[in-house]
């Protein structure tokens, strides 16, 4: 397996995630795009772990850790989104401008 293939797939996934984070209005869709970016990183970690044959299996273990952190992040993120929705009745990012410059 050429290392280029997983690396290119991961790079494309990451860029798609960047587009989603920048272009979407709905907070939950932004969270989904963040998940896409995390998965791109995971694919890279796996591919390079397989390529370098690390004795500690750092790539795959770190992938598991990233998955755990992503789960925690989604839990907290959705709780924050729900709290914002309860108080503001809106989760569109460009309508939440209380902290922005007028």
């Amino acid at each position, binding site marked *: 397996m050429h290392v280029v293939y997983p690396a290119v797939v991961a790079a494309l996934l990451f860029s798609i995630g960047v587009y989603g984070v*920048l272009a979407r209005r709905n907070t939950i869709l932004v969270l989904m795009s963040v998940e896409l970016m995390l998965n791109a990183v995971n694919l890279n970690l796996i591919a390079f772990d397989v390529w370098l044959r690390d004795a500690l299996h750092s790539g795959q273990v770190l992938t598991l850790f990233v998955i755990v952190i992503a789960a925690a*992040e989604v839990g907290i993120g959705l709780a924050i989104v729900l709290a914002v929705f309860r108080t503001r009745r809106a989760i569109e990012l460009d309508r939440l401008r209380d902290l922005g410059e007028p």
Partner: protein
Amino acid sequence: MTSAGFWPPSALEVVFLLLGLVAVGSALMVVTTRQLVHAALWLVVCFGALAGCYLVLTAEFVAWVQVLIYVGAVVVLLLFGIMLTRAPIGRSDDLDSGNRVVAGVVAVATAGVLVGVVVGGFQHAYAELQPGAGSAETLGASIFRNWVLPFEALSVLLLAALIGAIVLSRTDIKGRG
């Protein structure tokens, strides 16, 4: 580590590229679809294809963890979030903000830079796949011998995150005083 040219691709590489194509295509659908619920369902397809990629790369344990946690838990959580925020079911045309064009430019630039660097840097890298390198036994031994401390720290982090989520989402918990 340099062996085997790019053409013809081996059967494994063809399978990997097809799965990668599915992953990238469904990821594109996630960020472009006009229906919120469909975005979450396309995310399932994307994560499933990525789990297939991990399987091809011999990381079988990570593949099953991916299916269990991402497809099983994270997407369900996102669907709950969609439902609880009373998202419109069906087409909604205001899911994209006004800076779509800028976002597209930035994303294409990112993709160009990353793909260019990666292709230039790892053109000749070749990974020999050997089955069993990512089995539960190997990974379990690695985690509980070499990675115990990060593992424990992560368990505490996950617990703290879940308690935090509960505190944030319940309305009957008031601050002190």
